């Protein structure tokens, strides 16, 4: 705990001419060589003030401002000589301390508001809030921490080579088709003419139906219960197949049975 709060007290504050300096001088005179090390041990002016108050066992609610300011200024003076850029916040605090001190020297108004109480009140509030957080930080640091104080499981997931097949959805088809169309715009040799999908699918259906039969009766290809549109599409599909030379439609005599025959019959199947 001490180590966390005031590491400088435990470890050598600095080495001066090879000699470790284990304790801060009581009068806070800090040898210039040690200043940087000393500075690192405090988080800022509040931390230094807190240190001074706690070190001298001062009552936070009744800080002897003159003494505190004097010590603080001695410290800041040291800092000014070689680390001015680091000292800005400390100087600000010094100004605040002097302001509080001067306000305390002024005679207090007779009817003072509650808010205009002890000029040290705000300083005390900040000191206490800072100290509260400082202790909280220490407690947090004492909590067990993953990796530092305990380990996590890392069991290897053995990826057996199970072949996963890609999924395809309608969006994939849509974008594939869009890509085709986009390309066809760039390359006009390949004209894509749109046709009714249903005609095409019925062409497949008819070819499948013809599959394995030498002839199929024309009527058989139509499903009257499916509605007029369906029948028209089937008919268009049949016409298209004829046009593409895939089926042959034959009628031996007028009003006789019309037979449909696949021309490009896949012998193997």
């Amino acid at each position, binding site marked *: 705990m001490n180590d966390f709060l005031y590491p400088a007290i435990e470890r050598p504050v600095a080495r001066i001419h090879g000699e470790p300096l284990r304790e801060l001088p009581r009068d806070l005179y800090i040898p210039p060589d040690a200043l940087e090390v000393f500075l690192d041990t405090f988080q800022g002016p509040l931390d230094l003030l807190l240190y001074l108050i706690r070190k001298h066992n001062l009552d936070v609610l009744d800080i002897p401002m003159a003494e505190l300011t004097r010590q603080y200024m001695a410290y800041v003076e040291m800092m000014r000589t070689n680390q001015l850029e680091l000292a800005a916040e400390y100087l600000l605090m010094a100004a605040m301390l002097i302001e509080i001190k001067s306000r305390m020297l002024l005679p207090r108004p007779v009817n003072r508001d509650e808010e205009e109480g002890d000029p040290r009140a705000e300083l005390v509030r900040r000191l206490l809030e800072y100290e509260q957080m400082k202790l909280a930080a220490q407690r947090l640091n004492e909590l067990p921490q993953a990796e530092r104080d305990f380990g996590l499981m*890392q069991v290897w997931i053995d990826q057996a080579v199970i072949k996963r097949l890609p999924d*395809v959805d309608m969006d994939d*088809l849509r974008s*594939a088709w869009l890509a085709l169309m986009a390309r066809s715009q760039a390359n006009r040799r*390949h004209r894509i003419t749109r046709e009714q999908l249903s005609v*095409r699918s019925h062409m497949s259906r008819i070819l499948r139906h013809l599959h394995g039969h030498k002839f199929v009766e024309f009527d058989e290809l139509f499903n009257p219960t499916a509605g007029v549109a369906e029948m028209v599409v089937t008919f268009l599909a049949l016409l298209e197949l004829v046009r593409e030379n895939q089926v042959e439609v034959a009628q031996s005599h007028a009003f006789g049975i019309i037979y449909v025959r696949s021309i490009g019959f*896949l012998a193997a199947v």
Partner: protein
Amino acid sequence: MSDPSVSLPPSSSTGSSSPGEIKRILETALLTSQEPLPLSELKKLFDEELGADILRRLLEELREDWDDKGVELVKVAGGWRFHTRPEMQKFLDRLNPQKPPRYSRAVLETLAIIAYRQPVTRGDIEEIRGVAVSGPVLKALESRGWISAIGHRDVPGRPVLYATTTDFLNDLNLRSLDELPPLEELGTLLEPSENMGSMELLPSP
């Protein structure tokens, strides 16, 4: 549990640690290590000098302890490590959905052409795509059961005609080909052009 089964020689150099404790530490180290741990590393866990034979015996015991678990202790090239048994993968995959594999553009476009323009020959597909269609592309779709040869076109060479199958519809959750995104709709997603203008459809039947 299995401590009594460890019959260490009386002159065992395990010092203060019992075999059970050693196994407990080995197990913990192996469960938390990303890399396989060779015996030389595992030895470092213990203050006392542990012989390789003792370590090996305890590791064997540990392996048996895990016999009926979803994770097993195995010896691989780099040493010992725990890994999941193959039958666990299907469960774990549900937690870490891997990026599913994707078909190449060639496969998808070919599928789209067959779906929309069936029945088509390889030549038709090549004409539309503007490039040759390689054998593996059609093969991938055939072996998936999504397309099949349904006949030949009666032209010189008698090219095979392809169409989509019922499996294709099922796998894509379609009741019929009519449920594919209509082409007219697709046309509007692209900048209109001269060429697109020529693609006006026949009136609906």
